[in-house]
């Protein structure tokens, strides 16, 4: 298998932009190894359990809390839907009670890091992204520039934004525009790969 092309690579020109002073936020991207959605119906939790266990997860999880397994990260995105990053092909788990869907190419991750990462985010989303409401290890699905995205707090100053791939460029552009008064750096994709 070859490496997929992240649509932002051509336009992520590494460098320092915007206001002088400390670099308030670093903007970059990272690869998604795999992304699957599993969904079911009224017996979803029961039907999903074997798959979740196989992924090293305890259960379906909460609507606002990222579940971290050894290799798999999971987000409960709806009562009967879970999004999983990192699992192998899940096709064999499909049944009349559980459907699985490969979305590995359907999302692109934009990363924000730095002291003002949350400030930048507050300029583009209406939800409360302060550390009290979006603590490390939590996630939120919300709208960003009219596009539905999933945000997760990886650290106090580190946020990941899962953007539907065809919207990724427009979201990146609006983030950069908003970051001008803060001063920001575009990270080279290589650097990011090395770091993750």
């Amino acid at each position, binding site marked *: *298998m*070859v*490496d*997929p*092309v*992240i*649509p932002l690579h*051509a336009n992520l020109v590494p460098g320092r932009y*915007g*206001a*002088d*002073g400390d670099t308030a936020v670093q903007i970059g991207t990272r690869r998604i190894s795999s992304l699957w*959605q599993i*969904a079911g*119906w009224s017996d979803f939790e029961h039907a999903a359990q074997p798959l979740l266990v196989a992924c090293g997860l305890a259960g379906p999880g909460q609507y606002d809390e990222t579940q971290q397994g050894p290799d798999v990260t999971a987000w409960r995105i709806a009562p*009967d*839907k879970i999004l999983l990053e990192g699992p192998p092909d899940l096709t064999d788990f*499909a049944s*009349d009670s559980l*459907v699985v*869907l*490969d*979305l*590995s*190419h*359907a*999302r692109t991750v934009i990363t924000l890091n730095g002291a003002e990462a949350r*400030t930048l985010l*507050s*300029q583009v*989303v*209406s*939800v*409360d992204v*302060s550390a009290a*409401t979006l603590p490390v290890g939590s996630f939120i699905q919300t709208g960003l*520039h*009219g*596009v539905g995205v999933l945000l997760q707090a990886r650290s106090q100053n580190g946020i990941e934004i899962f953007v*539907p*791939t*065809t*919207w990724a*460029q*427009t*979201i990146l*552009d*609006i983030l950069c*525009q*908003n970051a*001008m*008064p803060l*001063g920001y750096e575009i990270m080279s994709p290589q650097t990011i790969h090395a770091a993750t």
Partner: protein
Amino acid sequence: MKRLETGGRIDREAPLSVSFDGTALSAFQGDTLSAAMLASGVTVVGRSFKYHRPRGVYAAGVEEPNALVHLRDGARHEPNVRATTTEVFDGLTCTSQNAWPNLRYDIGAVNNLFSRFLSAGFYYKTFIGPFRNSTRFWMMCETFIRKAAGMGRGTYLEDPDSYEKRHVHCDVLVIGGGAAGLTAALAAGRAGARVILVEQDSELGGAILSDPVGSDADNWRISVTKELGGMDNVQILTRTTAVGAYDSDTFVLIERVSDHLKAPENHQPRQRFWQVHAKRAVLASGAIERPLIFGGNDKPGVMLAHAARSYLNRYAVLVGDTIIVATNNDTAYQAAFDLGTAGANVTLLDARQSVDAALLAEAKGAGVTVKTGHGVLAAHGRGRVSAVEIAPIDAGGRATGPISRVPCDTLAISAGWTPSVHLWTQRHGKPGFDDASALFLAAPKETDALQTAGSVNAVETLEEVITQGFAQGAEAAKQAGADGAAGICPAAFAARDWPHDPDVIWGVFTRDGKTKGKAFVDLQHDVKVSDIDQAHQEGYVSVEHLKRYTTTGMATDQGKLSNMNALSRMAEQRGLRVPEVGTTTFRPPFIPTAIGALVGHEHGQHFRPTRLSPMHQWHVEHGAKLTQAGAWMRPWYYPQSGETLTAAYIREAAHAREHVGIIDVSTLGKIAVQGPDAAEFLNRIYVNGWKTLQVGRLRYGVMLREDGFVMDDGATARLGENDYFMTTTTANAAKVLGFAEHLLQTAWKDLRVHVTTVTDQWGTIAVAGPKARTLLSKVSDADLNREAVPNNHFVTATIADSPVRIHRMSYSGELAYEVYIPAGFATRVWERLIDAGTEFDLSPYGTEAMGALRIEKGHVAGPEIEGRTTLKDLGLEGFAASKKPFVGSVLRQRPVLDDPTRPTLVGLEIEGQVGAKAGSLLFPLQGETQGHGDGWVSSTTYSPALGKYIALGLLNNGKQRLGETIRVVNFVGNETLQAKVTSHHFFDPEGERQNG
């Protein structure tokens, strides 16, 4: 008018270069523009709206009606800027407005001479003109009226500055940084709440900033501000105005980040829009002083008493030497005392017959002469007030005794205070009326999340302002869940009380109840007391009628000064009390707000988000001309050097028919339909049947709206037992998904089906042309022979190391395939096809050529599925199953939808060498071309395959008219063509090519 040697909050070490109409002003850091004007002896600062009367600075805050100027120049030029809230900066230039040729000699002032003919509503009664059925006369007059109207001059230059939005969430929002707001924030902050304190001035303090530096009040302000500044949980926003209170817990604040500078620096925005969601809010917005009404009350040199005090104590500007203070209440005494102490010769006229003896004694001490039971009947002076007529008055404000003329250069007036309840009424509607104070006040319920504190409640003493602010702040914090201790409220300082007196006068009149000379209720709009009287006389008695007929309260200050006085006059005329007259509604924004600030970054290319195919970069790099398709940008055509759109699409379309072409169709909506009941779901949502579709096959389907009109079409493939892959048109993808989710979650809860968008997961390339199979066979490992993959089948394969799915289906009518590729591999596969295609003469094509190909083939698209067409109209009724119900199956049979004479889809072969234009109307060969015609042209193209211009159209009773020659009329293009009606299947009607 002069600048004092000492005092004030200005920095005398920092003189600034500031000019007004080309004349340099004396200005220091800390001045407002109006302070600099007054300090420099500028008497006339602008001209009024209607009569172009000269006007001077009237106030010291947001309520200013007169001192509006053009600020800055070039692309940063801004009209109607209030000098009273503009902080000066080095290099500030401003000019006067609404005056021509200049402020001193304004031609428009001729209106003043004719004012008796320009009274309220005069324009409704004249300019009607002599011509019946014509608006020409009025429009000629209107041209002149429009030029005379308006205030400042705008520019057509693009704003070079940026604006930013932020969304914040807090426990307690405190609006107003005066005494009540400071203690509210303090209490809430100490309790541990997340607090935002917003103040429109550059500093906290509110009215305290108009107290002398070093006074008890000032020291109190400094100490409270310092404690607040030390709290991490309290965010203080100065130069920030709360302009709107919207639904739920939402407030809008506008922060003027860079307006106090010549231009924004270091990439900072000019202004910042804060969308605040506050669990509780405390409105501590204070009150605005109200003017007294009398003849000539608009003359330069007349100003609000508190403004005069503010200019003195904050900016060290003494506004006059001989000052008359005219009031009906206690609060103006402090202004009189301070002005007297500063060296002015001050006489105070108090409309009340008796005044507290202690106050009189204090006045004596300050050297202020007080005349009780007296008022100003009229102000006189050319350019500036030079004398006033004063008279003893009764409790109704009518002159009762001899009139005397007293010289003066300044008249400082006060008729009491009007609480700024604007934000409360924005959210909750009309205010209540408080009989004790005779004022409109907020009427919060116990449960309201928007509380009020301080002068906005017409609180009478400073002690109470402070304790109320503190208590409301503590309560707000508690209600928001902060349980810390607020501690003890800071002790109050000495200040003048605001005792309520519901019987105060609002104006001074002659013995028979008239004003002496022009007495203005609304200064900017030149609405006089006599205009209100006239409107009443003509029957415009409701508050809304009167406002609209006279335009009172509709100027840039939105009635902040004029409303109460206008209501008082109306109440008198109608013999009612003010609350029975009612009040108009305050609307957002609290102050005029730059459009740019409300927009933020969402303009230009960011007006809407843009959606891009995973192969977008390739198209850009290879010179494609792009076009909009909803949110998407798509390749429209790929011009070769110097090629026009027309030449390019004809070449591209012809090429596909002869050789092979590829087009990026990633924009197609793609929806995974999964679950054991997926086939049943498809059976219900599509008009055709799905129970028999086998894995490995795909099928074209049509869906209707609930009302039976066609909504969308597309192919759906069965990938597995419980797995279907639906495609929709580009335009309808989101609509179809939302509709499907709605049905599944509300009406069809019993169906075990999930629908998920996979548009972003898959890039899609259509490969069309006689050599399509050869090309795909070369690049993939799939067996694509006719037998292995007949039409409407698909296979999985690998191209350029990428897994793909190859659907055999044709939109162009050619032998064609759609290749579905995981998005991250799409460009790689596209490039592989381009490379491998060289030997087959492959060429990419854009949406215009795609349109030509589908029209030749007679496929319907957006122009035909336009929301008003039925299955029958589009020749698709054959798809509808007769034995099963589906969405729209009942309502599509309503009589009008089922009428056999409706326009139906036909082909049109255009005669001659000019194409028809889509949107042309169809008419029979003979007869008038009137009415709605026999139908219309929906899509047109030149057909390279047929060598002629063709079109699709919807023609009344079209199926019965094949072979008829009709007229195609494009009225707006002055063009009439003839066309032969044909089947819409122009090209390869038997489908030999696509099935080959």
